[in-house]
């Protein structure tokens, strides 16, 4: 039996790196420090594995790779999408492949924190790493997110309860949850503020006004005195932070909500130290944005058909390309759009030659023409992942795998499309 310590969890954007994993006869038998979701990812990593397929027929991996390359070579306007649940070398290869095939290239941020990127491109953002929060924050606001269920160890490791340099635990922090309904997160906080559905922008704007000293009345169902109280608390803390999730990015207003939140935080820096951070979901969706940005200048939703990267969310984002039936082939890497995209987009995905590279059987792999099984990054192969705050960590190989890593599959496709 081998005990691996300091294992980085390849599940969510928290990228907890204190896991212990026990391996017996090449099989993972137990985990320590892992949250329930993480534990299940480790323990069931060998289940539901995809098989190499072409047109519903099981083939050799080589044959599947050959067919994938043929599809991409022959396509006029292919789409490469996903990227967020794999490591950064695979993401680098995906960019190379997109460049060579003149493809559109998008990652899952176009359906999660894409609006966060758009807002930051308008006004910037005041950010920090999670250790700053643990060591200094005395005011924490969770807005439109539910860490108790989606980022399970976030409150323990980074935000609500950890003992840091200047804050010894929950008692020395005031925690607020703003959301459209109470969730398990609301039970962990000092104050819950219920905002009416789709009216976050209004509440954020009222808060900005209150911070600037204007009288505010009720907004988004929140009484004036609550808004005023929160604004005073924000101005009066020594170190505050807003963590926000898809409740803010994907509700009415989208990037304008984020723009309002970013500007509120900017304003608060006239009074005290205040920061803001998106709660990124997939373990390396931050990395997908980073890699695409250093190679192309743009974080998502771009296209290479002119021989250079062009950026246009709404035009080159996957949902839009598919719904408008524009792309004539697709390669899906480490993502399951058929499970999440609107019906029209999924219909088109099913109607064009689609290649899926994924460790597991998924809804998308079921409708794909070509399936290429891959090793799971962070369990079966190494690589780099970027935490929600941009801190990069080295993923470990815990067990061997008969499958190729994503980056190697992509390299072989690249060789065959003429890279």
């Amino acid at each position: 039996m081998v005990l691996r310590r300091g294992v980085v969890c390849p599940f969510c954007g928290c990228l907890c790196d204190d896991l212990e994993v026990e391996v017996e006869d090449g099989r993972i038998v137990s985990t320590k420090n892992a949250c329930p979701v993480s534990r299940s990812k480790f323990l069931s990593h060998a289940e539901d594995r995809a098989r190499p397929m072409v047109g519903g027929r099981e083939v050799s991996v080589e044959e599947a790779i050959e067919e994938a390359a043929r599809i991409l070579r022959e396509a006029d306007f292919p789409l490469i999408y996903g990227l967020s649940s794999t490591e950064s070398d695979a993401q680098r290869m995906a960019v190379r492949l997109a460049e060579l095939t003149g493809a559109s290239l998008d990652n899952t941020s176009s359906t999660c924190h894409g609006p966060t990127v758009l807002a930051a491109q308008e006004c910037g953002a005041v950010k920090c790493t999670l250790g700053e929060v643990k060591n200094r924050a005395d005011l924490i606001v969770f807005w439109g997110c539910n860490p108790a269920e989606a980022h399970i160890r976030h409150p323990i490791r980074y935000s609500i309860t950890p003992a840091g340099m200047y804050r010894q635990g929950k008692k020395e922090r005031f925690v607020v949850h703003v959301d459209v309904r109470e969730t398990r997160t609301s039970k962990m906080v000092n104050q819950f503020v219920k905002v009416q559905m789709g009216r976050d922008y209004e509440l954020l704007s009222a808060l900005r006004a209150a911070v600037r000293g204007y009288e505010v009345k009720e907004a988004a169902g929140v009484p004036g005195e609550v808004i005023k109280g929160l604004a005073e608390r924000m101005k009066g803390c020594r170190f505050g932070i807003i963590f926000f999730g898809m409740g803010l990015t994907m509700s009415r207003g989208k990037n304008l909500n984020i723009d309002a939140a970013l500007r509120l935080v900017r304003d608060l820096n006239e009074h005290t130290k205040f920061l803001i951070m998106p709660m990124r979901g997939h373990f390396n969706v931050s990395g997908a944005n980073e890699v695409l940005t250093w190679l192309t200048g743009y974080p998502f939703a771009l296209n290479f058909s002119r021989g250079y990267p062009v950026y246009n969310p709404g035009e080159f984002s996957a949902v839009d390309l598919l719904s408008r039936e524009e792309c004539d082939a697709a390669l899906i890497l480490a993502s399951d759009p058929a499970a999440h995209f609107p019906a029209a987009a999924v219909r088109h995905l099913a109607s064009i030659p689609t290649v899926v590279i994924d460790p597991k059987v998924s809804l998308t792999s079921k409708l794909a023409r070509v399936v290429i099984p891959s090793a799971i990054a962070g369990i079966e192969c190494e690589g780099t992942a970027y935490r929600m705050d941009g801190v990069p960590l080295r993923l470990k190989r815990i067990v061997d795998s008969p499958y190729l890593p994503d980056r190697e599959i992509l390299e072989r496709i690249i060789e065959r499309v003429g890279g």
Partner: protein
Amino acid sequence: MIIKNGTVYDPLNGIKGERMDLFIEGGRMVEEAKGEVIDASGLIVFPGGVDLHSHIAGSKVNLGRLMRPEDHRRDPVPRTEVTRSGTGYTVPTTYVTGYRYAVLGYTTVMEAAMPPLTARHVHEELDDIPMVDKGAFTMMGNNHFVMKYLKEGNWEKLRNFVAWLLKATKGYAIKLVNPGGVENWKWGKNVEGLDDQVENYGVTPREIIRGLARVNEELGLPHPIHVHCNKLGTPGKFGIVVDTVETVVAERGRIHITHIQFNSYGGEDWATLSSAAPEVAKAINRSEGATCDLGQVIFGEATTMTGDGPWQHQLFRLTGNKWYNSDVEMEVGAGIVPYTFKPKSLVNAVQWTIGLEVALLVEDPWKVVLTTDHPNAGPFYRYPKVIEWLMSRKAREKTLSEVHRAASSRSTLPSLDREYSLYEIAVITRAAPARLLGLRRKGHLGVGADADVALYEFREDDIEGSFSRAKYVIKDGEIVVKDGRVVKEHWGKTFWVSPPGELPEDAREEFERYYTVSLENYPVEPEYLPRSEVIPCG
């Protein structure tokens, strides 16, 4: 390979424009060789350029790219048979960065600000920058353990920690950015001078600078401490540079003041801003062990990005432009604000004079390095414009006549006759930075040097054009640029240092308590530097 009949400028070997042949074999300069002949008649031959301060890789650079799609859109770079695509303008993508340096004839570039916690990110990007050799400076001026051991006066632990941190981050040099001020910024504050207190630590910027300078020499690091001074970008605060230099040289230490232009401001506020270049140049002139690079302003678009969080907040408040702030636990901060240097702006015109004044007033060219603090005062690929201003008084007068008149009345630039020679240009762009970095095979063309060579068709009437597109660039003995175009993609090395010293025992527990990553997951693994070379200390 033989480079035949070129006019060679090789300051480290005392060669000042002599017609001669050069020989290359196995990636090095040699006495005699056969093979391909490059006819260099009518061309000038320089060692490959060396940039010791540029921002090309890492979290802050990438935030600069992320926040500025408008900057990229006007400068798309299509792929070719040999090169990959990307975008510019002020913060080019990694591949484009490598290609553009190569076309200028630069073959070694240092990333000047690596946050330890995100060092992996820096190395991942460096690994995607082709054409040049590279390295990165590890930021330490606001590090928890540095300040703690300084307060305790425990030199042994400080020395061990610094050595360990350089190895853990695969860094090349000790970088200080607004020492102490960035820690205070984590509470929304700053320091106002060298003797202000850092909150909760009970140390001062002066103690941090002095301490790290001492450790730097004790470890025998190849490069001096590399300092971005306190109160950067503040009118009237040039005295801090002078004081910082004197603090270090008084103890016979070495210090490199980076982008000195941004710290050499006289006057009392922005309306009364004037150049304090003469005072600052005087301090450099009289201080053995002190050197500087310019941070020369280029008019046009820039993206300011520094580890100096409070300064970037000030710049945001001044301009109202978009603002990124990025604080890193236990170590550093950073900020990014787009900026446009306008010729008709009083402030920008005066800023423009200062870098040139320093270059012309520091008597010994070996103490000066040409930089724009890319992309802070302008993109690196505008270096040829700076060369033109330095070599031609006429070119300076032309620009002076086009910019705000304060440039003439609040600076000594109009009175300066000095014109740099080609030899001196070779010093400030090659020989001096290589020597300052302690890279013995760089910056010269003597036997044993790396075969990094740049050949230019030099025209007196178009100095900028002459240096913008090298006729040939040879990297590690291979022709990589011909007629101003990249003809071959080449992968350089990453340099780092490995001084003796381990993490002090008592740091382990504190590390696990206050960081959010495990100690074992902190050091950058060798996989991130597939091609690297350790430069010896001592």
